[in-house]
């Protein structure tokens, strides 16, 4: 079972990533911003899931870590698993989906969660060079991020609201430890 301190650490990191995403300074390219936006979203979702997760059998705990906590795009990953999840993780995914869908700009949050940087040059990536219009492009030189992850300002605002909602849940979660 997660502790409030553990959840706080995930929330703090989500906030730090979002602050980094909002910095405008020399040397910071749009690809870096997009990575931090995704990371912030991901960590906020994991903080929420940690609060909802109740201890299960050893195999369930392992699956939760392997299939969710250690994954880059946790919601996308769970949606795309070919084999059936354990019931506990299946139901947790439903809880997280309902939480996200209840927020403003849920569609944008889904989009951000789903931006996974892959080594496949055919796929847009904020970390690895990829093929764009027939030529290799460095992510730092790419300008089509709005189509990939939504407008940056809107994406930051959506993740900020997500973090605020997770913080609200954290105050409810802390009641169990008083």
């Amino acid at each position, binding site marked *: 079972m997660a502790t409030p301190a553990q959840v706080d650490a995930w929330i703090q990191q989500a906030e730090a990533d979002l602050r980094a995403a909002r910095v405008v300074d020399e040397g910071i390219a749009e690809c870096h911003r997009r990575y931090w936006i995704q990371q912030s979203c991901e960590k906020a979702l994991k903080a929420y899931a940690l*609060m*909802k997760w*109740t201890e299960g059998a050893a195999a369930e705990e392992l699956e939760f870590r392997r299939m969710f906590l250690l994954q880059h795009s946790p919601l996308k990953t769970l*949606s795309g698993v070919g084999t*059936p999840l354990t*019931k*506990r993780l*299946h*139901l*947790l*995914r*439903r*809880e997280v*989906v*309902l*939480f996200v*869908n*209840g927020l403003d700009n849920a569609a944008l949050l889904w989009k951000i969660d789903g931006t996974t940087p892959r080594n496949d040059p055919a796929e847009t990536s904020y970390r690895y060079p990829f093929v764009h219009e027939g030529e290799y492009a460095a992510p730092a030189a790419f300008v089509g991020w709005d189509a990939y992850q939504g407008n940056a300002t809107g994406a930051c605002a959506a993740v900020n609201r997500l973090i605020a909602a997770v913080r*609200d*849940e954290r*105050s*409810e*979660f802390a*009641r*169990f430890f008083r």
Partner: protein
Amino acid sequence: MVKREDIVKLVEAHTTVEDDPVDAVIWIRRDDDDAWLVEVLPALRGDSTPGEPVTFRASRSFRHPLHLIASDAAGLERAIRDDRALAQEIADGEVLYELESRLGQRLQSIANEVTHGHARAG
């Protein structure tokens, strides 16, 4: 005790997950301070512990612990037939949501059969 309007709102939300539809929801243990729902989820086909609840803590949007007894219809039917106490609770429960297939009523009918030895009109 859980207010009916709160549990109805929760169930409405539970029916909106597009890629993981729910076929029926029955509210059981309606006098309990925690919420207990039996949910028919076709995606949980092959579930080996259909009668085992999974619990989620209270949250800002729903301020009661939630115990979900979820499985596909066949799994829940098996659980009802294997567990007379669960059958009694389902028989005494309230169907809050179901599709035209009336799976909620069907499960209650099976629960009545297990509890009373015969089907009772719903």
